[in-house]
């Protein structure tokens, strides 16, 4: 707000009741006749209801704001303080941005424009991942999502941000909706809509409407207010700079929600890969499985797993993993980022004079004709290499060191290849030679070589031999040397346990006993066949260890007696609350709160057990001495610690104070706050511990951190992969947790997608996309009845969830998945068939189908009947003793016993049944899940076909089960015999019960037979009535005929009308179909253009 600006002030009420009151009050004040108010203490709450509501509202609002802290394991870009404090900082990996859209909507153009915005590179055709620095704190990898379903699935699993490109001139296409659905099932990473081809809309109104409609549609699909960007035009095959830069700003600043799958599974978006199969004399090259190395940033979480899944290829053991040089590093500290210096790493797109092909690397020399010495940069290096003729033959040439010397070598990746003689302008370099990443970043690697040099004859941890009384002199220097010794011995302890060779083969047996050639026999595992150890005591222990499997260590009998000696127990005095508290506190490292580092105070106090005298280094002048001894680093650490302690103390006391202030009404809320606070505090502590525990050796204990650029070698790759690899399909390597390599049965909740046109049939093969994998499996559909029975379903319900059990790789419950019918081929409509969540994993699930066993009565006694046909043998029958049976007419019964005859059972019923009655038992039949698992690969994959597909392909008619055909039901009328009552019985019956149906009289009765003669008067009346009737009849007849005539006329009129309408409607229909046809044609043309 500027100084001079004047705002409209408050205007007093000048009319109405309020004004009157105010006036009155003012007057009263002036006169001094102001009335005393009510007792204010009596009316603390003037309006109880409103106050209550307000309180509730406030509580609700605060409650809404509360959230349980989410675990986010992604590393963040270090703040300035962090950068200065620790020596080695792990930088986060590039953000994965997937650029998605239907064919021909400008994906490549967008990537090209974004790359050019940040760097000076123009990518003619961006293929494969493009990594570049977009700001000082963020790197971005752009992935162009292929239009295939498989490609969409893969990209959705790794993308942090999705740019959904939409051709505004055409509108949304099915691909976008499918991709959104795929994203939803795989964790819904952030989505931005980008409208392209806006320049093809001619009028401003059309443009405005298109933007509005598309935005609204996108919002309903994602969420209200989702970001939409517009690319308003295109110049030189690139979008307008302003549009692109606003999009880029958003990309740079957006934050991402942590996703469960990704934060638990490390993965790599492979920038490039190499075939490093050693040439063998195997006759058929194509038969041989290949060994490949893939390169990329570790994303998601740190890479510690041994198994990995290469999406669309298969499962592999990680042969080796090593950190290599980052091809796209951040600019140096403190430097502003300049466009010309921005690194772009896009090996498949031919950026930076290096082009990676399937099995070779091309380096552009840059000149048609060159002489030695005048070529600079990468070309110069190649020329230099060429001068050393013959060196690149066969074994290859490591040029790693040489590459460092080359001036101005911008592209790091060039360093990794060796050259072969070639005199065309593009030099083909063989990639056989491997640069070993360990060399330049030895400390990062997990090989733990540094441990190797820790001396084997340094003090072993359990028998430190110190001169008994020598401690009394020269304490400070002794402390220092002890500290060093301890450091040394710590290493030794680690080495003793794990051996020097930390890269132990996972599958290998426990036969590393001889590799631990250290001095302590104690830690050595020997085979049974090995010679028994000489010591007597050990021998017994060895036997116990080998055979008994007990965690209780061997007891030392002497140690028991030792405590009984005079004064021995006094040594332990300080371990008990009865002892000296200060002493004990320092003795144990001062509590567990610390952030991981060893507490120095641990070593300060010494106690002479022989004299019982305690010596405290800290006491008296020792303090000053100690401080002097500390170097800057230690001093800083100490200060930081003091500060932290003070702060935590202050926080605690502050919290308590606050708690003391609040009381009464807010007690519940306070408790809630406390709980959340505690959660947050716990989380902060945990994060602190995670960050500080391992320090420099993190890779040894915590794996390869996120953001490391690693090379992973995989063996046993199908040669098909090498030959049919398409760089525009992203290659992704996902890490698998230990249990995820096993197969098992999975039960899931699934729903047919409402946009998918057909319902799904039980036991028809489907392709699942679950976790990293996509695979074909056979789902068994079921629904859960109220008594937890899982009842078999033939088809998915139309608008409901159902359960589905299938055989596949085990994943944690609550993982989302989706099903498609087919990955290849052109499919009409919405391709995602169903989506769901996994619920449970087990080795067996019971799904049951209803089964009715039907039988007939063989012999009937009163309420008992022998029923045949239910079972085939008495063994079968005996399993159903006590089962409930029922006749169709509803008479209930029970099976009592298996009769001798084949499957005949004796049943009792609540009433006598008829011989014609059908007796049935309702039972449930388990249905087995078909154990079929077929991982979908990108090349040469063939899946199981559904029966309908097969029948269609082979031109077979639909199978008809003759029993299932409905036939007309013929129900013969039942004939009942007349009831016969014997004469004697009839006679004895009372009148009431006697049959009274006498036969009809054959002769006429008197009344009907007699003649009637009317009087004159009577007759005239009769005739008159007859005449009236005749007149009426005639009238009615006339009216009817008239009606018929009129209706006929009306019908004719209507028919005439109808004819006129028919013509009109026909014309309309024709118009509609014509337009539809045009649209279809246009769509087909577009899709053809896109492929």
């Amino acid at each position, binding site marked *: 707000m500027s100084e001079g600006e004047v705002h409209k002030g408050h205007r007093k009420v000048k009319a109405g009741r309020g004004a009157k009151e105010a006036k009155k009050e003012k007057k009263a004040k002036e006169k001094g006749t102001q009335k005393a108010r009510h007792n204010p203490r009596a009316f603390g709450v003037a309006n109880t209801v409103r106050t209550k509501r307000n309180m509730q509202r406030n509580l609700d609002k605060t409650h809404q704001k509360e959230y349980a802290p989410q675990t986010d394991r992604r590393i963040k870009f270090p703040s300035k303080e962090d950068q200065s404090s620790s020596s080695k900082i792990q930088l986060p990996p590039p953000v994965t941005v997937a650029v998605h859209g239907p064919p021909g909507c400008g994906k490549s153009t967008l990537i090209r424009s974004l790359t050019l915005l940040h760097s000076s590179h123009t990518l003619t055709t961006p293929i494969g991942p493009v990594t570049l620095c977009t700001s000082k704190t963020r790197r971005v990898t752009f992935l162009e999502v292929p239009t295939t379903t498989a490609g969409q699935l893969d990209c959705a699993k790794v993308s942090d941000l999705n740019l959904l490109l939409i051709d505004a001139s055409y509108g949304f296409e099915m691909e976008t909706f499918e991709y959104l659905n795929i994203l939803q099932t795989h964790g819904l990473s952030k989505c931005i809509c980008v409208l392209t081809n806006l320049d093809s809309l001619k009028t401003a109104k059309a443009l405005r409407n298109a933007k509005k409609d598309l935005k609204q549609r996108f919002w309903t699909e994602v969420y209200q207010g989702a970001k939409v960007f517009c690319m308003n035009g295109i110049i030189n095959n690139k979008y307008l700079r302003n549009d692109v830069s606003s999009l880029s700003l958003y990309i740079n600043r957006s934050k991402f929600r942590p996703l469960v799958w990704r934060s638990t599974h490390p993965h790599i978006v492979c920038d490039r890969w190499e075939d490093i199969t050693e040439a063998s004399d195997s006759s058929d090259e194509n038969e041989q499985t290949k060994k490949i190395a893939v390169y990329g940033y570790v994303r998601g979480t740190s890479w510690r797993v041994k198994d990995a899944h290469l999406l669309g290829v298969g499962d592999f053991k990680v042969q080796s993993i090593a950190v290599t040089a980052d091809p796209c590093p951040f600019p140096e500290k403190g430097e502003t980022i300049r466009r010309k210096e921005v690194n772009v790493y896009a090996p498949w797109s031919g950026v930076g004079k290096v082009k990676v092909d399937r099995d070779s690397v091309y380096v552009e020399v840059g000149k048609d004709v060159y002489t030695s010495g005048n070529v600079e940069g990468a070309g110069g290096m190649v020329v230099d290499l060429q001068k050393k003729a013959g060196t690149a033959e066969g074994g290859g040439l490591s040029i790693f060191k040489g590459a460092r010397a080359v001036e101005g070598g911008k592209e790091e990746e060039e360093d990794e290849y060796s050259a072969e003689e070639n005199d065309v302008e593009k030099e083909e370099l063989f990639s056989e030679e491997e640069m070993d990443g360990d060399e330049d970043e030895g400390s990062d690697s997990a090989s733990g070589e540094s441990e190797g040099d820790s001396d084997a004859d340094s003090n072993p941890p359990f028998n430190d031999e110190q001169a008994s009384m020598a401690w009394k002199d020269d304490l400070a220097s002794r402390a220092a040397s002890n500290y060093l010794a301890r450091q040394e011995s710590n290493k030794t302890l680690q080495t003793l346990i794990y051996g020097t060779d930390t890269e132990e083969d996972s599958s290998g047996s426990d036969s590393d006993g001889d590799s631990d050639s250290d001095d302590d026999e104690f*830690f050595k595992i020997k085979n049974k066949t090995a010679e028994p150890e000489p010591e007597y005591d050990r021998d017994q222990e060895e036997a116990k260890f080998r055979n*008994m499997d*007990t965690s209780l*260590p061997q007891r030392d009998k002497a140690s028991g007696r030792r405590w009984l000696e005079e004064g021995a127990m006094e040594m*332990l005095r300080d*371990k008990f609350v009865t002892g000296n508290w200060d002493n004990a506190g320092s003795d144990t490292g001062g509590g567990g709160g610390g952030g*991981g580092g060893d507490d120095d105070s*641990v070593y300060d106090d010494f106690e002479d057990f022989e004299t019982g005298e305690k010596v405290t280094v800290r006491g008296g002048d020792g303090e000053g001495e100690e401080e002097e001894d500390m170097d800057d680093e230690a001093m800083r650490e100490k200060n930081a610690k003091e500060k932290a302690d003070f702060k935590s103390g202050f926080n605690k006391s502050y919290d308590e104070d606050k708690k003391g202030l609040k009381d009464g009404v807010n007690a519940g809320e306070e408790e809630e706050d406390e709980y959340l606070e505690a959660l947050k505090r716990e989380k902060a502590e945990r994060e602190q511990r995670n960050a500080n525990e391992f320090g420099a050796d993190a890779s040894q204990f915590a*794996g390869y951190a996120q953001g490391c650029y690693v090379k992973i070698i995989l063996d046993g790759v199908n040669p098909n992969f090498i030959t049919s690899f398409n760089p525009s399909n992203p290659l992704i390597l996902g890490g698998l947790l230990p249990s995820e390599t096993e197969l098992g049965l999975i039960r899931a909740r699934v729903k047919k997608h409402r946009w998918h046109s057909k319902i799904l049939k039980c036991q028809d093969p489907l392709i699942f996309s679950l976790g990293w994998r996509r695979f074909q499996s056979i789902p068994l559909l079921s629904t859960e009845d109220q008594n937890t029975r899982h009842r078999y379903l033939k088809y998915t319900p139309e608008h409901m969830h159902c359960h589905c059990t299938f055989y596949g790789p085990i994943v944690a*419950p609550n993982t989302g998945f989706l099903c498609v019918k087919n990955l290849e081929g052109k499919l009409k409509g919405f391709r995602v068939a169903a989506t769901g969540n996994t619920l449970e994993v087990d080795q067996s699930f019971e799904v049951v189908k209803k089964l009715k066993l039907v039988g007939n009565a063989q012999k009937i006694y009163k309420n008992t009947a022998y029923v045949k046909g239910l079972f085939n043998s008495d063994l079968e029958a005996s399993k159903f003793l006590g089962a409930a049976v029922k006749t169709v007419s509803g008479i209930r019964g029970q099976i009592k016993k298996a009769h001798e005859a084949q499957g005949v059972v004796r049943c009792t019923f609540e009433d006598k049944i008829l011989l014609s009655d059908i007796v049935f038992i309702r039972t449930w039949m388990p249905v087995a899940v078909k154990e079929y698992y077929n991982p979908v690969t990108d090349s040469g994959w063939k899946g199981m076909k559904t029966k309908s597909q097969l029948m269609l392909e082979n031109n077979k008619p639909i199978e008809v089960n003759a029993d299932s055909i409905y036939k007309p039901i013929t129900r013969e009328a039942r004939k009942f015999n007349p009831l016969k009552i014997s004469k004697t019985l009839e006679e004895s019956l009372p009148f009431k019960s006697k049959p009274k149906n006498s036969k009809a009289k054959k002769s006429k009765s008197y009344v009907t037979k007699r003649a009637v003669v009317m009087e004159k008067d009577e007759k005239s009346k009769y005739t008159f009535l007859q005449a009236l009737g005749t007149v009426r009849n005639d009238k009615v007849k006339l009216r009817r005929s008239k009606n018929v005539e009129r209706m006929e006329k009306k019908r004719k009129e209507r028919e005439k009308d109808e004819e006129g309408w028919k013509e009109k409607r026909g014309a309309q229909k024709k118009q509609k179909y014509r337009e539809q046809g045009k649209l279809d044609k246009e769509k087909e043309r577009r899709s053809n253009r896109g492929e």
Partner: protein
Amino acid sequence: MSSSPLRFDDGPVQFRQRVICSILSRRPLLVKNIRHLDQDPGLRDYEASFLRLIDSLTNGTSIEINETGSQFKMRPGIVINGEVSHDCSVSRSIGWFLEGVLPLASFGKRDLKLTLTGVTDGYENEEVSIDYIKASMLPVLKEFGVGADESEGPGAMLRVTRRGAAPGGGGSVEVFCPMVKALTPINIVDPGMIKKIRGNAVSCRIPPTSPARVAHAAKGILHKLIPDVWIHTDTNSGSKTNGPGGCGESPGLKCTLSAESTTGVTLSAEVCLDYRLERGAVLPEDLGVQAATLLLDEVRKGGCVDSACQSFIFLLMCLTPEDVSRVRVGVLSRYSVTTLRLLKQVFGVEMKVTGEGKVDGGGDVDGGGVARSVLLSCLGIGFRNVSKSVT
């Protein structure tokens, strides 16, 4: 597609841990050369019994043992738990079995309600007993978040319904353990100061004066250090053999002591009368003294967990989410070291082992004084209870 099997060719070393690790990592297990050079080769009855117990706790586990029993293969299934009762072999105590399956207890599809019958006391000199598990391991389980939230139901419990001493057995124990979705990382590094000592002197078919004498002797020593010592005596007479409160057929006497510190750390020690010895060879007083000195030994080591509890904790530390867990132990036992190696082999988790603490003036550790403690820390593998279902 399947995970690589765990292969061992050194016989029954760490038998239980290997089986458990195989199930938790879902990697098949192959153990060869089980006492193949012995006169009596192959698996022992208790090991077979343990495998049967595992089989009844899981679904889909297939176990193949060869003819001589010197080799067995296991393909792990899914942990189910639920209500299971198992008759343990009497050649080992119930504690041995329970200690083995305890890491699985909270990773089932349902809460574990396990009833074990067999020997409850009498093997304390060789292995941990149920009283020890109750005193030391169940509190640790709580630290890992198993049953930590009391609003969600009871935590892990162990109840001795009937005592049965070695070698006759006949005891019965009920164990309850709630399932969890995932463990929580631990940070137990401060042993604190011992504030109280509790104990239990149990006798079966022995005059009730004996446990009282044990308790008296133990208190005689411990009172010199701390006044808050309470040793409960639990006498089980043979007269009620079949009724409640009865006990098995064999006589037995044992004593479990546990010391609790200001930071909630519990250290335990126990001794028993060896049933193989002649009557009167060991006086109850000796037993009491032995128990007390063993407890003092544990305290001296300066760890936050017992030596017998170490490997259990290490395994659970590996199974936490991807967070750092830290624990301070006294002296790493040989068993624990083997466990550490096993964990590295199975889960790929290497612990950071830091020896620290005061170097005593008297030279050798066993010579007396306060030993160095060892601080172990590791990053969990992010283990989740896969068999737990969502509704």
